[in-house]
């Protein structure tokens, strides 16, 4: 077997998968290891857990905060994320539960292709926006473009090979199953698939080290996930330390004459 095929078919898939999972676990563990010294939700904030759940759900399912401030970006971002979700789910079904299409109907199998088109359109919008709008261009680093271009390439290859029937889904499925059993068979010898596949592996590895870790990080956002109950229930800061302040006695000695004009002992009743 070609050594390159051996590496990308037998070795890097595992590296990519475990980097993604363990990397994200490490990221979350690292965040969780740092204390939350204060309770600082952005108000108006809910005072109940149900309220927090509602607030977070609206942010998750409807991107509500984004909707408040930027409608165009909301459309682009929302379509992108929904298409991403559909794509991920349909990949899992395609590869591991292919028979399921027979149950839900092959119409859906065809429909998924169109979500790929929307996916590409949304990604292109986000990329063009990043290049064209001066404010977004100013805050963009090379890595911000690279991730979009990487995604566009992966999605384009996926849509392209599906549209023209360039890959045999059944053989891909068979190969992916073999990976799952830790007894891999050679990957389908198909340049379209292999390119798509390698780029996806790179994406997996990239996620935990980059801003894409927002996919879990958002849940820990303290301005959104905390209740506005600070005066009601005390929040404890684990690294709190005492401070020295001028005491009343010191203050009294310093301003004795002035305080006595207010009244005896500085008191005016």
């Amino acid at each position: 077997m070609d050594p390159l095929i051996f590496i990308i078919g037998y070795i890097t898939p595992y590296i990519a998968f475990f980097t993604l999972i363990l990397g994200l676990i490490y990221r979350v563990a690292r965040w969780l290891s740092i204390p939350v010294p204060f309770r600082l939700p952005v108000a108006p904030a809910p005072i109940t857990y149900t309220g927090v759940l509602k607030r977070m759900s609206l942010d998750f399912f409807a991107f509500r905060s984004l909707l408040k401030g930027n409608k165009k970006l909301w459309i682009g971002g929302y379509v992108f994320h929904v298409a991403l979700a559909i794509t991920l789910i349909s990949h899992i079904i395609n590869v591991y539960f292919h028979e399921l299409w027979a149950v839900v109907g092959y119409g859906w199998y065809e429909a998924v292709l169109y979500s790929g088109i929307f996916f590409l359109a949304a990604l292109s919008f986000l990329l063009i926006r990043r290049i064209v709008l001066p404010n977004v261009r100013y805050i963009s680093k090379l890595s911000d473009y690279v991730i979009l271009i990487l995604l566009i390439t992966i999605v384009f290859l996926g849509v392209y090979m599906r549209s023209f029937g360039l890959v045999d889904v059944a053989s891909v499925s068979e190969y992916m199953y073999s990976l799952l059993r830790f007894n891999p068979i050679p990957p389908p010898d198909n340049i379209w698939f292999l390119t798509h596949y390698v780029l996806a592996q790179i994406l997996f590895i990239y996620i935990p080290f980059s801003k894409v870790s927002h996919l879990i990080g958002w849940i820990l956002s303290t301005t959104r996930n905390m209740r506005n109950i600070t005066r009601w229930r005390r929040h404890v800061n684990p690294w709190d330390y005492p401070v020295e302040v001028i005491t009343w006695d010191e203050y009294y000695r310093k301003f004795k004459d002035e305080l006595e004009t207010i009244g005896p002992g500085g008191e005016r009743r």
Partner: protein
Amino acid sequence: MKLDMSFPARKYKLYATWKRDMETMKLPFPREWSHTQFNLPPNWREVALKKMDEVVNKFRSVKLFLDICVKCGACTDKCPMFLGTLDPNNMPVARQDLFRSVYKRYFTLTGRIFRGLVGAEELTEETVELWYTYFYQCSQCRRCSVFCPYGIDTAEIMIAAREVLTAIGLSPRSLTEAIAKCETIGNHMGIPPAALLSAIQFAEEEIKEETGIEVKVPINKKGAEILYVPPSADFFGGPHWGTLKGAIKMFHQIGLDYTISTYASEGGNFGTWLGYEHMKKINRKLVEEAKRLGVKWILGGECGHMWRVIHAFMDTMNGPLDFLEEPVSPITGTKFEHAASTKMVHICEFTADLIKNGKLKLNPDANNQYIVTYHDSCNPARVMGLIEEPRYILKNVCRNYVELDPNVNREKTICCCAGGGLLADETIELRLKAVRPKIEAIKRTGANFLACICAIDKAAFTEYFEHYKLPITVGGVHELVGNALVFD
């Protein structure tokens, strides 16, 4: 959205802390320096990076926010400082990036390997200059956070970033002068006890002239039921004066057993904008005084950032406040359950409850000369969520009340742009530009009275209206309450 690539806001720098104040406050590296000549200590980079490491490992939010920003740009046009100057570094994300890029370079794997490609930058003296300039152009109003899909709060990053600046001996005079006074004399304005007494007596005389009633304000009174802590600006006069008188008149009408304190005569807390330690120090005096006087609970006056500290930090920093009692209004019997732990109630909460229970004798016609609009201060609105109470009071004490444009109102408010240490003469040009959208919105309502519940709002808007030659009076909600009170 256009940018001004000449970075016009770079020229607005807050003046340097006096050496003597650095010594008084025991700040690191006390020395002569200026906003153009930092005279950084030789080991500044080492100190800065050590402090940076410390803050990102002390605040989960800070590390998280530095890590997960996707640079979507939703916040870019939300910061009044940016809208007013079009300076790219005043976009909230760009402001954070000044800090984030250094964090990436020294504390992340990708940053250490890929450097500039992922936006990681070396920490240089030029970076420090940008830090001092732009970190102190954030009023910490949290407007950007409302629109961020993950709620990234620039204010929290700035609080941490300013800790780093303070550690290498950089802090602005606009904060430290007031903090030093507060820690030695008792309040930001530097009003000593005798002057405070004079102010109180003067207010009492004025009230007598205006209404014919004799009031006497208890000072440092042991055993009073309630300690009333307004911002010290209220004792100083100007647009704050009416608020002090309004509150005194109201307390008199309901026969409240209260006291003010000279030792804790400052509700405000400029330490908030410098760092954790001085925030805690200033706030600590309130707690010590409440304990010494033996009051049951504390009532807080009209002040914005004071309430950021009380609502979000006080109990955590200086609690538990077990020696106080759970606040109950002695007039209406209402339990302020939401303040059960901190034992401190906002005067608007207190007054709204009085009105709701019909305990105030009010004649709203007394404010008929005014068309009133209400300005949501950033802290009450976005830290406390105190949005309805002031409006409820206003609607009960005046007949002509109008709301502002919803785009700059309530939780979306554009603040006075003078918080965070920006209330200084050297930033007036910047502030006038930044506050423009708010001024326009106020003009559109046709109001001639701007009610607010923050001392900095009152000072700043008075200045702005003078500059823009607008015949609008600025005053507190309790100034209008005071006007409407009926004494028979």
